[in-house]
């Protein structure tokens, strides 16, 4: 008798769990017909999503109200799908956290600093943005060009009619891009003279050599490889690379966005420059200048080269640095969910959406 009750209550708990899951983990991608046939599969998917949410809950502090909201959205989505291609309903704006270089780049290109709509949902990383917008048919956000659009169920949108690609960024027709910048420490402010020379050599490798540019390009950075010289020519000015440098360590800091392209360049440079060591200690664009020329330059996290996925600000003067410039570009791509029929945005569209002037998809469809 008692066991029976226990089982009953456990069943009840299970039912409650499943109902919570269906309430907030709605799968918007599937069509109605699929729903019937794939009910079993979907249930699994939903539980997965739910668990994902459960784990994220701590950081996102999702309230129950939001869950309810989402169910409402789901209803709307079904209506729009029936509508046949035209996009209606509320726009869900997604934006990156305030420390993000992508956000700064996006806001400065579109030109709406401090006017961001209060309804914007803040997400913590590029991947977070990709996942969230990919799950929300009403959503709009922005990611970097290196993002895997298909895997995240995203549709990259054109900006002012120009398709985002490596070519359009290099030829300057795609305007929604941000520079990846670097700055070195001041001359004479290195652990050793040799390290200073090695850093100089690396900067030349990164910005001028074919090998360096190809490495950056292969890791998603956008550079014009045609406009470069071979390292064999350039290295004549940098005799430091012809000695054993295994005792030297180049430490980098700053933006996490640059990590891939930076690491690719450093790795390609390592066997060309006497096997130096590298410490890629990226934490965020704000730390790039601070740890090379700013207040933290003698602290525990001092670095030799600092990076920012934006231009250095006026309060981050780089005139003391041996060298400070852009080494590649990264295109920011406006993304919407895959089934969203809107494929192009103008600067004005984006301004309206992100400042809240256009709250519904109808407002920009004209």
């Amino acid at each position, binding site marked *: 008798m008692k066991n029976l009750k226990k089982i009953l209550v456990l069943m009840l708990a299970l039912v409650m*769990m499943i109902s919570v899951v269906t309430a907030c983990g709605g799968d918007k991608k599937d069509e109605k017909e699929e729903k019937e046939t794939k009910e079993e599969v979907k249930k699994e998917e939903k539980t997965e999503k739910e668990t994902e949410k459960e784990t994220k809950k701590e950081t996102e502090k999702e309230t129950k109200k939001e869950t309810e909201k989402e169910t409402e959205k789901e209803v709307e989505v079904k209506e729009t799908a029936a509508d046949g291609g035209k996009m209606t309903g509320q726009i869900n704006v997604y934006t990156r956290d305030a420390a993000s270089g992508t956000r700064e780049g996006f806001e400065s290109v579109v030109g709406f600093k401090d006017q961001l709509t209060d309804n914007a949902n803040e997400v913590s990383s590029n991947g977070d943005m990709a996942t969230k917008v990919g799950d929300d048919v009403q959503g709009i956000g922005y990611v970097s060009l290196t993002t895997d659009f298909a895997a995240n169920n995203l549709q990259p949108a054109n900006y002012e009619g120009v398709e985002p690609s490596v070519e359009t960024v290099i030829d300057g027709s795609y305007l929604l891009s941000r520079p990846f910048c670097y700055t070195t420490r001041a001359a004479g402010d290195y652990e050793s003279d040799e390290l200073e020379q090695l850093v100089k050599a690396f900067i030349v490798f990164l910005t001028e050599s074919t090998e360096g540019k190809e490495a950056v390009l*292969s890791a998603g950075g956008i550079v014009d490889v045609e406009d470069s010289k071979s390292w064999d020519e350039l290295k004549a000015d940098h005799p430091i690379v012809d000695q054993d440098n295994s005792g030297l360590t180049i430490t980098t800091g700053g933006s996490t966005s640059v990590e891939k392209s930076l690491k690719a360049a450093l790795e390609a440079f390592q066997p060309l420059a006497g096997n130096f060591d590298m410490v*890629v200690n990226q934490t965020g664009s704000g730390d790039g200048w601070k740890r090379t020329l700013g207040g933290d330059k003698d602290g525990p996290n001092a670095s030799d080269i600092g990076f920012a996925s934006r231009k250095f600000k006026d309060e981050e003067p780089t005139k003391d640095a041996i060298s400070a410039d852009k080494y590649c570009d990264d295109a920011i791509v406006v993304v919407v969910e895959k089934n969203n029929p809107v494929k192009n945005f103008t600067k004005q569209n984006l301004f309206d959406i992100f400042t809240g002037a256009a709250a519904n998809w109808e407002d920009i469809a004209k």
Partner: protein
Amino acid sequence: MNRIRIIKDRIAEGFTWLSSGISALVLIAIFVFIFKRGWSTLNWDLLKNNYNSENLMAGYDHIDWDEHGAFTAPDTLPEDAFFSEKYGVAFVDSINAAKESQMEVVFLDPESPLQDGKITTAGPRQGEKFGMEEGLFLKKISYINLEGEKKSAGLTATQGKTSEELVSVLDNDSQEVVDFYAQTEGGGLKGSIITTLLLIGLTLIIALPIGVFAAIYLHELAPKNKLTAWIRSSIELLSGVPSVIFGLMGMTMLFQVTRLMGITGQSTMLGALTLAVILLPVIIRQTEEALINVPDGYRMASLSMGATQFQTIYKIIIPNAMPGILSATLLSISRIIGESAALIFTMGTAIMDNPAWNSRGTSLAVHIWTVMSGEQPNFELASAISIVILIIVLILNVSVKYITYRMTRDKDDQKKNNKKAKATAET
């Protein structure tokens, strides 16, 4: 008992079942989620490999290329491999755990000229014989094309980004190979696992004695007055401070301490010191709880036998409070493994392969942070690392539990032996 009472009790009872059922289900769901996402990524190589691959470059400027004829592909070649007849080498494309494309050398003909390279990188190994090897991951190959120009192909070049393309370029457009750039397999967790264990060890060595003795003072020795109560409540308050604050404090204040030890930058030691401060409230609180559970009769009996206060503490109270202290250790271990915010400031985010107490490193939690913070967060790898963390926590928990069990059992055995000895003496 009236009917309403019974119903009320049943409802209350049912509610407890419901709650435990929900928590159990949520836990199971998390396990299923992590294992489903991460299990396929997890393998032995991931655990034992270095994170940073070795970057190798070898040149062929001393080779007479005309000597070598064409090669034929062996029958054992995997189906997705592409074989270069001109150089006798085969490549396979793959995607690694970090979701980057790779080009692995899967076959090299024993006669292939590519194996007779020499290291071109300046340093002690320069000129050493080193050539293309099976198991290397090719990044780039430079060659002289039919027009006599130097060109390059491979993953970090503009052409030859797939094995098929690379092989066709090599076979159809090249006269001879100038040099190649390849990597050993990387992306492993070895360094982070060692750092995590090192960090746990260092932190416990620093935090446990301080925490335990502070608790002993507060509970056994301190006068029961307002000051003691105030100290106690401040310690409890300390446990509510976010760990980022501790990280900032460690970076500015504790860094001066590690500087005295001769460390110039972020280090595992700095991380351990910071974590020790974070853990103090937990350890003090837990130890005090354990001390409270030691019956007062033990103290009285010991003191009345003529033992001093410190003899009582060392010989009676601490041994009896040991299970509680060990559970404090367990809690601390979980906290150390889970901490990331404070460690980003104090230990950095650069993943190192040869961690030491005085160098940078990342614990597994910070490794997850690094994996997830880039432009392309990698859920699969993060889940795989989570599984590793779960396994480490499990092993540590079981071993601490085992130690506790042994200690209490030894004591029981002793008691039994004493009884037996007594009994035999009596008879």
